[in-house]
Structure formats: structure tokens, C-alpha cells
């Protein structure tokens, strides 16, 4: 089960990872999170390649995706997921610093399920991440083939 997470967080900045995990901890969701440090790692996980070749076939219930990532950026990851028949059912939430309309429009065109701008204010940030976690990992009924809460 160590390779399983109901939330796949794709985020390169360790500080953002820590803040996000802190926010999810309050609802005991932190243990459900798997972290990918760049787009390539995220795709490796989803396609069960490299380090993740042996993981179980279940998909995460939601993908929290930063846009600015090393190697393969968030929009490319999004594009690949939504172009793949097996992966496109996974809900993808863009969680980014970018306020730019261009990024938002591109994300929605690529079929993103939600677009959230990380608030500067910590309380708002915690609330946003918490709500995202609760909604997508607990409330939302994920597509077949996703990790289910046992």
C-alpha cells in the first residue's frame, strides 16, 4: 500500500509540499497523499514506469497539479492525461500560483476539472487545499479504477 495515494500531488517546491500537507493534516488526509516532484515523475507514476513499475493498477482519486514544473510542465502533463483514454477519467485540479488568464484558459481547453489559484493568505490557502482534499478525496465519487476508501 506504500505506493498508493488517493491524492497525487505534483509539486516541485518542497515548501509548497509542506504547506499543502500541513493543510491536509487537519483532516487526516496527509497520509493519502503521494508526491511527484516534476511532470515526468507524475507521468511515470500514472503509466507505471520506472520506480512505479510495480505499483498497483489503481489510479489516484485526484491529481493536484502545479503548472510550473521542471522537465515536463503541468500543462503538458494535463495534455497527456486528457489525451489518454485510460487516464482521462482521473479528475485533475490545477493548483498554481499563476493568475494568468492564459494558463487558465489553456487548462480548461485541455479539460481540467478545476483551476485553483493558491491564495497568498495562509488561512485561505489552508481552506482551499482542505476543501479540495475533502471534496475530491472524500466527497466526490471517483471514476472506476481509482483507489477507494476502504
Amino acid at each position, binding site marked *: 500500500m506504500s505506493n498508493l495515494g488517493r491524492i497525487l500531488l505534483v509539486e516541485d517546491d518542497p515548501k509548497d509540499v509542506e*504547506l499543502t500537507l500541513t493543510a491536509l493534516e487537519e483532516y487526516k488526509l496527509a497520509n493519502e497523499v503521494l508526491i511527484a516532484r516534476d511532470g515526468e515523475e507524475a507521468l511515470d507514476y500514472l503509466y507505471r514506469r520506472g520506480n512505479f513499475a510495480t505499483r498497483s493498477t489503481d489510479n489516484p482519486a485526484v491529481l493536484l497539479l502545479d*503548472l510550473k514544473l521542471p522537465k515536463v510542465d503541468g500543462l503538458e502533463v494535463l495534455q497527456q492525461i486528457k489525451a489518454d483514454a485510460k487516464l482521462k477519467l482521473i479528475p485533475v485540479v490545477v493548483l498554481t500560483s499563476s493568475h494568468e488568464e492564459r494558463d487558465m484558459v489553456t487548462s480548461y481547453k485541455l479539460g481540467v476539472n478545476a483551476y485553483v489559484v*493558491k491564495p497568498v*493568505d495562509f488561512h485561505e490557502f489552508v481552506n482551499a487545499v482542505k476543501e479540495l482534499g475533502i471534496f475530491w478525496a472524500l466527497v466526490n465519487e471517483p471514476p472506476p479504477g481509482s483507489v477507494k476508501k476502504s
Partner: protein
Amino acid sequence: MKSERPNVTALPKSPIVLSIIQRYGLAVLSVSVAFGVSLVTERYNFRAEFTPFLLAVAVTAWYAESGPGIVALIMSSALFDYFFTEPRYTLEVSASDVPRFVVFVAFLLLITWFGAVRRRVERELRQSRDDLENEVTQRRAVNEELAKRSAELQAINKELEAFAYSVSHDLRAPIRHIAGFTELLQKNSASVLDERSQRHTTMILESAKKMGNLIDDLLAFSRIGRAEAHKTMVSLQQLVQEAQSEVAQETDGRNINWKIGRLPACYGDRSMLRLALINLLANAVKFTRTRPQAEIEIASTNHNPDQIVVSIKDNGVGFDMKYVNKLFGVFQRLHATEAFEGTGIGLATVQRIVHRHGGRVWAEGLVDGGATFYFSLSKSQGV
């Protein structure tokens, strides 16, 4: 860019210039031909009179100007007189020949005059063609320069856009971290921090938040400069209402008397104008905060048929007219941050929006006596 080449090739590059020998040769040749034709026609008992000679004189005067024309005239007169008028084979001139001679001379003058006119017109046409060509060359140079500048500007704009994007993304992240971890520190270590340290963490938080707001405002400001304006007919009345409800959350529990006059429609970018109005109304609300009864009046003063002038008047703390030129600058503030919060970008944003609509923005104020902000917009699509 398409360069339009006017069709100037119809005229020869240089006029046909006949040499002096060619010109007088033409006189001799044309008269000789006329003489030959007359001889032949006479042989067949068909008297062509002096028509061939007239033609000879005309052709010479037309193509070789007046000098050879006179030579042709003299030769024609002499030949005609000698060979074709009674008594033949003498150069005797009788009174009956005078009309013929007069016709010859009149004809010569007429054709010479026509030729002169033709040459003058040709010269002028050539002149204007040359002028036109020069102008085209110049314009092409100017166009090339413009295209170069435009490409440069586009490159700079792209760079600026990349810069703003990077600011938006990279600058906000560390601020979020500062705010986030300071907050965590406050929450988790409140028991071990003394009062002074707690105050310091609060200050760090406030500064981080302020920095966040500054970046957001600055980004919004730069976006107005970069964004394309989508202009349509916009009802200012409706926009003011929207702006009013937008700032309403700041007015909770306050006594504000709004007076909104009749406002016309104008031609502009809806979301930009909305932002400008929100900024102006928010300012009016902010700077009347110290008043027990705030008065905010929005009206349209309309003296010019092509222009709309909107005024936003409040009875707030006002400002010193000495600093009126600083009012619309970026990061310029006329009040202490403790008294009235703000980043100093609001009015700069208003100015940028109004300028992008070809309008003007100005203000009148009095310390402790309220302020009135005006902006003008053009009524029609002509901007």
C-alpha cells in the same frame, strides 16, 4: 507591409530628344515626301492642292518644334509656288497666293502651339512622376523603419509579458511561504514566544500580505497595458451600479448617501471601464470613512457633443492641490498607510484605462474639503 507601386511606367523614362540634324532633316524629308505626293496626284489629274504640304509642315512642327517648322513652311511655300501655281516654274507671287500663304502660317502657328502645350504637359507629367517615385521611395524607407520598430516593440512586449508572468508565478510563491510558515510558527509556538516575538511574527505576516497585494495590483496594472481592448457600447449607468455593489462590502454599517445622476452610454472596453469605476468609487468610500455622513455623487457633465465627462465627488478628507500631479502616479500616496490603506496603484490604473480610451482624467480637491475626480470618454467609435 504591402508597398503600392503607382503605375508610372506609361511615360518613357526620358523624352525622345531629336538632334538638331534629325529635326531639320525631318523638315526636308517631310516636305520632299509632300512634294512627291503632290507630283504623283497631279499626274493622275487629282489635284490635292496644298494638303500634302500642310501635313508636312504640321508633322515637322509637331515633332521638331518651330525652327524646322519654319524651314518646312518656306520650302513648302517655295515648291508649291514654283511647281503648282500659275504661272508655273517661276517664283512669282500673285495676290491670289496670299490666302494660301496665310493658311500655311496660321497652320504652322497652331501646330507649333499644340506641340509646345504637349511638351509642357509631358514635362509636368514627368516631373510629377519623378516626385511620386521619390515619395514612394521615401515612404518605403519609412515603412521599413516602422516595420523594424514594430518588430522591436513586439519583442520588447513579449519580454515584458514573460517578465510579468514570471513575477506572477515566482514572486508570489516565496511570499506565500513566508506568510504560511510564519502563521504556522504563530500557531504552534505561541507558548514559547514572548510578546515581543509574537508582535514580530505579526509584522512579518502583515508585510508578506502587503507584498502580496502590491504584486497583485501591479500585475493587474500591467495587464491593462498589455490586454487588448474589446470596445463595445457600454452603459455607464449599469457599470456604476455594478461598481457600487462591488464596493458595498466596504460600506457595511456606514452612513453613505449615494447620489447617482443620469449617465449616458459610451464606447469602450466594458471590463476595463468597470475596473476604473470600481477604483474611483472605492477611493470615494475609503476617504470618506472619517465622515459621520458620507456624500458620494456621480454625475455626467456634458458640454461637448463628442465627449462624456463623468465626475465622482465626495465629501471626504480631500487632498492638497499642490500634489495633484502626483495623484495618478504609480505607488504615489498622499496619505499615511495607517490612516488609509492602499498600494497607490488604483488611480494609476484609472489613468491608464482612461488613456487607453483616448480620454483624460483629472481631479480637484481641498484638504478636508472633499475631492472630485473627473474622466472624459469619447461618445462615438472614433477613438
